[in-house]
């Protein structure tokens, strides 16, 4: 099975998904939730009434609350986003909603100060950077026996960046079609995928490490391809069967709160497996062959 031979096809496929998602993000902006943006999210259900969103917005405006957006959920409740609410304002608001519209139950209320949101974003980014840096260093150290150990670390990180980009791209589609938002659960999913992406890449790389000491004569491309094929069954069984079984169950049977989280996690982990085989290992070969020298030449010369 020659997986590496089609490497530019796989690169192209990934780029297609990533770029189309990024275009959505650039056009629409990041769908940040109150966790990062600051502000409040109130989810209520009314006992007897089913007002149109305009009625709710009117009550908010009467209470002098700005930036109001109302969305109805599948279960018939209302998800209302607005600016950060002081405690007293919230009391006034709930009273006003009850008086003007009807008896209600608060299902969920998230209220995040603007400064907190900003800090969470910056520290979250830092958490990602620090953990990836540590992992690169760890891989470089762990592969110190093979040639170009640092390369393995960097390729693992490139695969990870690929997975992160895929997640953002999928979330962009999700925000467009299903109203997904980037919240702290998204961050949890993202960091998990990063950890898993590394874990999976390391398994493939470990086989290359092992084989490179066994088959010294083999040229690098054949060696890497062989290693991928050897670990393929394991990759399929572990990722597609076990992890995806568990997460699929979570998506199908889990509560609404978890669906978005589980979907992102599922796609991210799928991408984690995909990128180990179709991104990380091929880049390793590409680097070894210094293929970029051929990228801008005439096609007839690249055949050599």
């Amino acid at each position, binding site marked *: 099975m020659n997986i590496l031979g089609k490497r530019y096809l796989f690169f192209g496929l990934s780029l297609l998904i990533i770029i189309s998602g990024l275009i959505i993000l650039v056009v629409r902006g990041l769908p940040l939730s109150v966790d990062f943006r600051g502000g409040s999210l109130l989810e209520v259900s009314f006992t007897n009434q089913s007002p149109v969103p305009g009625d709710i917005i009117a009550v908010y405006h009467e209470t002098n609350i700005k930036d109001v957006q109302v969305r109805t959920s599948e279960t018939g409740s209302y998800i209302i986003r607005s600016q950060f609410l002081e405690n007293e304002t919230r009391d006034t608001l709930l009273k006003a909603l009850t008086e003007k519209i009807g008896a209600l139950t608060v299902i969920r209320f998230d209220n995040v*100060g603007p400064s*907190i949101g900003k800090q969470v974003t910056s*520290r979250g980014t830092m958490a990602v950077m620090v953990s990836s840096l540590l*992992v690169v260093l760890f891989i470089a150290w762990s592969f110190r026996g093979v040639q170009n150990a640092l390369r393995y670390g960097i390729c693992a990180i490139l695969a990870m960046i690929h997975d992160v980009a895929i997640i953002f791209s999928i979330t962009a589609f999700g925000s467009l079609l299903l109203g997904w938002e980037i919240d702290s659960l998204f961050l949890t999913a993202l960091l998990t995928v990063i950890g898993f992406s590394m874990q999976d890449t390391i398994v493939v790389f*470990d086989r290359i490490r092992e084989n490179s000491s066994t088959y010294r004569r083999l040229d690098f491309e054949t060696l890497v391809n062989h290693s991928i094929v050897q670990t393929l069954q*394991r990759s399929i069984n572990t990722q597609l069967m*076990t992890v995806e079984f568990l997460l699929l169950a979570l998506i199908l049977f889990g509560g609404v709160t978890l669906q978005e989280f589980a979907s992102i996690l599922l796609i991210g982990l799928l991408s984690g497996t995909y990128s180990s085989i179709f991104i990380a290992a091929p880049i390793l070969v590409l680097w070894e062959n210094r293929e970029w020298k051929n990228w801008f030449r005439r096609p007839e010369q690249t055949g050599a």
Partner: protein
Amino acid sequence: MARNLTNRIIIIVLILALGLWIDLSDKIQLVNPINDAVLFEQSITPRLGLDLQGGLQVLLEADLPADAANPGADEMETARSIIENRTNALGVSENLIQLAGERRIVGEFPGAEDTDAILDIIQQTGLLEFVDTGDFRPEEGTILQTDFATGSTDATTPPTDGTEPATVYHTIMTGKELRSVNVGLSPTNQPAIDFVLSPEGATIFAQHTAANVGKILAITLDKRVVSAPGIEGDIPSGQGQITGSFTAESANELAVQLRYGSLPIPLKVVETRIIGPTLGEDSLQKSLVAGMAGITIVMLFMGIYYRLPGITADISILLFAVILFAIFKLIGVTLTLPGIAGIMLSTGSALDANILVFERLKEELRSGRMLRQAFDQAWSRAWPSIRDSNIAALITAGILFWFGSTFGATIVKGFSLTLAIGVLISLFSSLYITRTLLALALEVFKPKNLERWIGI
């Protein structure tokens, strides 16, 4: 094969028994057999997070200017325990107040119905100040601006009255100096609050009252004037009384608040989350169903695909669950939705280690090795990749945990903690338990037909 098989089995059975004991009991107790003294007791009822049972989460932040130095760890700890005392007094059970980073406190009140009352009592900082207002006698209820908690902590003389448009009054001392507080009666038989100051407080109070006879000393609670008596003479005893328009009830409330202490630093609510009880219950039910369904499919798959080794892996996954749950109960992990996801992921990690070994086992057998030899090779060759990949996972979990604790983002923290513990136990489960069980199974069944037993 595994050496000392008997010993290994004994160890596994002991761990299993210990795990089941912890899993099935509500508290663990060690009693000295000679005198029946209780040596060790710990309640180990499982804790459910807010997202699973509903409730209120509040994030409080020290209300100091952004450029001011962070408050001391002692002060934050005092503030934390004061909030704990106050909210406990409300009768909310199982609340959890924790420090989150250097200037934040996160409070969680599972199952809380009356969230308003909790928010109110937390937000009343209960900052009692004795404020020098000079000749100005403020009305009761006026909000005074004082120089306390505006960053300047040094007790230098405040700007003289009238020179600034918004007068900032000087705080002589705060409720920190209170030693004891009781409800008493004023000379006019109105409810009042009697207080005794600490020695340092008494000195400050004595000096100030001696030097400012005839001036006004306003007493404010959270910057709101409670009463503004004139200083009639110096008070060297360090004892005094706060009078105002109190009812017996409000005097008592104030006394309770002062007794548990005023917060050493003002706090503001920067984040509130309320999760309705139905949403939590729904999530819990559904995740349990999802977990069961997922695990059943996985176990079936492992058994069918990997045959005998797969079945031993299934057993070791069950043991993994028993041990994991016991450890969660022991160290008091709060189970949240992301926490459940963390458990599922570490279960995946445990399975991955098993799969790595079994694939290796098949490979070695296909290359013509004897079963015994292939068995040893499988584990030793799979080890480096299991080790390295799990260390990478632990690094990420560690960074996440740090991130979660600094921000009071308890969901992230819960997830990373369960993931880290899960990964560690998954290593034990796949490297020790599966290996022992498979060695035992091979001894017992002595399989000849490898295609049927191992599925190569």
